[in-house]
């Protein structure tokens, strides 16, 4: 004789509760987005607009920040600039209006390219190795498996700077300092521990019976792994790949200590972008905006896998 035994769940919040919750969460989200919106706005401001007070929300957008990001410039006399042939493009025009001429391309795209190469290279390696090892740990009785797995995870507790000291010496010895290969190997090693842990969780969830059925049908274990287990694990592999990618894309400590020039990635490079008299904030903002775009796109496309991956990692430790 209970009034709560209705068809729908009693724990469903009331419409008012939902509305209040929604308003608070949306307000929070909007306030937290202000710094990101500001990065984008600053990237299309002129340098004087970017440092005006009070901060300008209404201004004439310009590509100056992007031009300054992609080029290096030298100051010239107005007479010299007058004597030049007509400007060849927007950036040329903007640069000349500031009494400067373009001296050449900046290092932004090479550094961005390094980030792409190192992040995707190490993600691919970490996920490939991690999938194999996770399958091995999940399906076979490996001696000392628990100790090995715990040790694999504990390597992540060391501050990167602490690991960087011997890595620095080792890389100097083997000629891996400031090389993309060295960074790819390093990031792969850092990520593979997480990849094994996450993927083992996902593969544990796939019933063994699938492979056993496939093997009864005449598949070898390798074929069963390739044709049955891998397709089932796609979601987990995708989630793991995003985590590895986010780490490798964003990493700073190793990059700043182990690379100085040709293999430098974007995170240590962007803060070094300076104009005349300190940081050129529109250029820094432009560099930051471009750098954030790939990871934002990934987050939005793969948000479902991402949510599963994080919660999965949480549930499984």
């Amino acid at each position, binding site marked *: 004789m209970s009034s709560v035994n209705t068809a729908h769940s009693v724990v469903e919040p009331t419409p008012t509760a939902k509305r209040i919750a929604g308003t608070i969460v949306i307000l929070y989200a909007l306030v937290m987005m202000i710094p990101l919106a500001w990065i984008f706005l600053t990237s299309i401001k002129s340098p004087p607009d970017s440092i005006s007070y009070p901060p300008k929300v209404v201004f004439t957008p310009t590509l100056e920040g992007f031009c300054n990001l992609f080029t290096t410039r030298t100051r010239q006399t107005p007479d010299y600039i007058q004597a030049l042939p007509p400007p060849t493009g927007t950036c040329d025009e903007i640069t000349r209006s500031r009494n400067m001429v373009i001296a050449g391309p900046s290092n932004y795209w090479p550094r961005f390219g390094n980030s792409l190469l190192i992040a995707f290279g190490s993600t691919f390696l970490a996920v490939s*190795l991690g999938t194999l*090892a996770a399958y*091995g740990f999940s399906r076979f009785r490996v001696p000392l498996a628990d100790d090995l797995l715990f040790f694999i995870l504990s390597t992540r507790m060391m501050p990167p700077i602490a690991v960087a000291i011997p890595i620095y010496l080792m890389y100097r010895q083997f000629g891996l300092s400031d090389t993309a290969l060295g960074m790819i190997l390093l990031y792969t090693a850092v990520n593979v521990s997480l990849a094994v842990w996450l993927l083992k969780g996902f593969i544990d969830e796939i019933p063994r019976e699938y492979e056993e059925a496939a093997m009864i049908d005449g598949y070898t*274990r390798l074929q069963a792994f390739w044709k049955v287990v891998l397709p089932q694990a796609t979601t987990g592999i995708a989630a793991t790949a995003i985590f590895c990618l986010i780490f490798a894309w964003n990493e700073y400590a190793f990059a700043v200590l182990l690379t100085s020039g040709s293999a430098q990635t974007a995170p240590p490079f962007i803060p070094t972008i300076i104009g005349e008299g300190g940081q050129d904030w529109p250029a*820094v903002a432009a560099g930051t905006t471009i750098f954030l775009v790939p990871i934002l796109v990934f987050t939005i496309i793969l948000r479902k896998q991402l949510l599963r991956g994080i919660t999965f990692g949480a549930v499984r430790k």
Partner: protein
Amino acid sequence: MLAHATPTTIAVRVRGLSDRAIAWLFITPTIALLLAINIFPLIWAVYLSFTNFRANRPNAEVDGVGLRNYQRVLNDPDIWIAMQTTAHFVFWTILLQTVIGFALAYLIDRKFRGHAFWTTVILIPMMLSPAVVGNFWRFLYQPQIGLFNYIVSFFTGIPPSSFEMLGSVTLAPWAIIIVDTWMWTPYVMLICLAGLRSIPDYIYEAAEVDRASAWRQFWSITVPMALPFIMLAVLFRGIENFKMFDMVMLLTGGGPGSTTEVASITLKREAFESWLTGRSSAFAIILFVAVFGLANIYVKALNKVKQR
């Protein structure tokens, strides 16, 4: 026996590589890579911590110094101050992130319209590079031109140029705590959300039958059931913030003075500026043992909570 997991009836039918061979084939590359890039350097660091080696003088003679490096590190007041600074950061960031993160997760769990979309929006800060974002926050914190100071003065009336977040001894630590909280609250929120979603509906239904108040339900069901997840989030954030480096480096570089000099910054200074490789290795090992030990004690407590 390696291949024990497969029932013998099926194992007989397996052709090609044996299971044992496959297990090794699959696991060895990862173990080899970890040995080369994680374990070997770790052992090397242990060795270096007993010597007076300096990386900027590779040809100088290397002498064993026994435990002297450890003695020096543990007796160095600067390092103890850095440890206190680190503890201060870890405490406040965890407290703020847990309270705000849990509150957000609780609200999102009300499943209002569009909650999936707004969850994704809230997640964005944690996807970004702490270094790149930290660098930009330096701009937001500028006393004369920064947006942060403008907004604060807009709401409080305090003149924006009268407080300098990054240059003031009292405010600089908070400048870092604010950015870290901005960035990592979503992470705590997600783990808490997983915890809240794991509570079965029937428990609330039973409480409803017993006419337990909403307040009572929150403290007797929601919080205890989500506690293992909250503790897990605290563990992850604790380990990460113990290692905190990039954000501090770009926001304050450890200054003003040494008010924001956390352990990683001290370590970087000793290892890559003073080039005291042996000594800094000893410091690194001490840090590792400390975080490893604390994490282990904590995990034991966590397991107790889980079993309740």
